[in-house]
């Protein structure tokens, strides 16, 4: 499978990365090289193999049902949360107008 400029533009749109014509054209052969190379995975017989998403056997834990057990991940830290926002006003994240 290979991608053309139209497809790359669509992917870039999905990934929310603005790309000009020149950059899109440059990306086409680069991405195709990589995609052609990973194509070799198709040779592998994976009949009956379950896809692996976790490498080391581990069980999902439940934390104690306790409010704000760890102060680092607890609530009440609005100013810390907003400290690095490029635009924060009135205790909120500021964004461009999203509704007309």
């Amino acid at each position, binding site marked *: 499978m290979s991608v053309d400029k139209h497809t790359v533009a669509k992917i*870039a749109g999905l990934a929310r990365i*603005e*790309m000009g014509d020149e950059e899109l054209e440059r*990306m086409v052969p680069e991405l195709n090289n990589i995609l052609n190379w990973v194509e070799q*995975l198709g040779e592998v017989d994976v009949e009956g193999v379950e896809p692996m998403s976790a490498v080391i056997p581990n069980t999902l*834990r439940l934390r104690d049902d306790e409010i704000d057990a760890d102060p680092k991940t607890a609530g009440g*830290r609005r100013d810390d949360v907003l400290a690095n926002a*490029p635009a924060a006003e009135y205790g909120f994240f500021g964004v*461009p107008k999203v509704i007309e």
Partner: protein
Amino acid sequence: MSDLTKLGVKAIRDGVVAGDFTAREVAEGFNAAVAAASELNAFIVTTPDHALAAADAADKARAEGRQLGPMAGVPIGMKDLFATHGVQTTAASHILEGFNPQYESTVSQNLWDAGAGMLGKLNLDQFAMGSSNETSYFGNVASPWRKAGTNAAMSPGGSSGGSSSSVAARIAPAATGTDTGGSIRQPAAFTGICGIKPTYGRCSRWGVVAFASSLDQAGPMARSVEDCAIMLGAMAGFDPKDATSLQMDVPDWEAALSADLTGKKVGIPKEYRMEGTDQAILDSWEQGKAWLKDAGAEIVDISLPHTKYALPAYYIIAPAEASSNLARYDGVRYGLRDLPEGAGLQDMYAATRAEGFGDEVKRRILIGTYVLSAGFYDAYYNQAQKVRALVARDFENAWSQCDVILAPTTPTASFPLGSLNDDPLTMYLNDVFAVPASLAGLPAMSVPAMLNEDGLPLGLQLVGKPFDEQGVLNAGLAIQQRSGFDHAPEKWW
């Protein structure tokens, strides 16, 4: 007291404990060495005051007769992928330039609790994506090593290139690294130092800028196996804030170090004998076998049949996870915002991400977005996850025949900066020997073996069973004792 900068972790800690010198003298020596080494571009920011404060705390604790921590008085470099409270954390990206974490990562906090201090935040490949440290927004890192007879700047490897460069240059006794597909081991091999990636889950990922979450693991980089054992012990441990953290005790790896490999079997995977591997690398592998045999081990031939497919599987899985993880950089909550005149929210996202990410990061986000998109998910992503299962199964089968695996770390020695930039694929091949252990979540280490005919270091890799960092460290120690590798680059910076 400039000779204190020749010392490693153990020597500094033991010297401070014994009162041979003060931790402040050590910190001052390294701070000066860091300040004088700006040509390496190993640090993005330096934090001499942090190092001094930790040193003073260690000296005070000693004066008061209190027990000192395992890293007491040791100033280290911190890869700029770990969130450090009040100290800019960028992942070497423009999009996080100026980001000032309001919290401390678990691994860095563990190190400070053990008595270490911070010399500064180390440069790396942008978002840890790269094998040569040429994708950083803050410029390339140069290796302190040069090819005999040339002055060309060489790659320190990547992504932990600031870590490897600073430790090899003796401007830091040790540094943190992170390894997603070789980012600790390959730079360690390129610069003649040691580095270990523990079993997935040993070190908390909380507060580490995420690249590919099912693969990312932190680990130490230092100049000896003992130093790695000490520092790994300080970094590791269960953390309830990381859902994949291993709920297991951390063994005392330092205390249990032993280079006697009697009764141990070392596996030699035949599939690692790949085309395009330097003859000098193959020779060093032979030498490694002889050293381990001399240490009492039995050498056995093994097969890891899916080795060839590990790298292409990695280059689907890692970008897929990255495209998801990096969706958080939206110009709203932290980092850069690019808001063109009259732009709406969607335009702001796209403009911010176009401005804030470098080429390699964009490339990987696009690949990841593509392989996860409807219609391609099964052909690419699911297939890669199945191949990953087979790579892991290969290792499981191998453990019935051997206790630890010996292989080269990289197919070549370091290369000049700029020499592999034309083709991303050639760059990816650097990690061909490192990636299989990452996909399987296994502990793996690189230790220096020798210099090649150009005077550049070559590393040997040891891969162990899950949770058997000790077996990896012990085999590494056996190699270290026999190689006697103590070469240092000639100072030019």
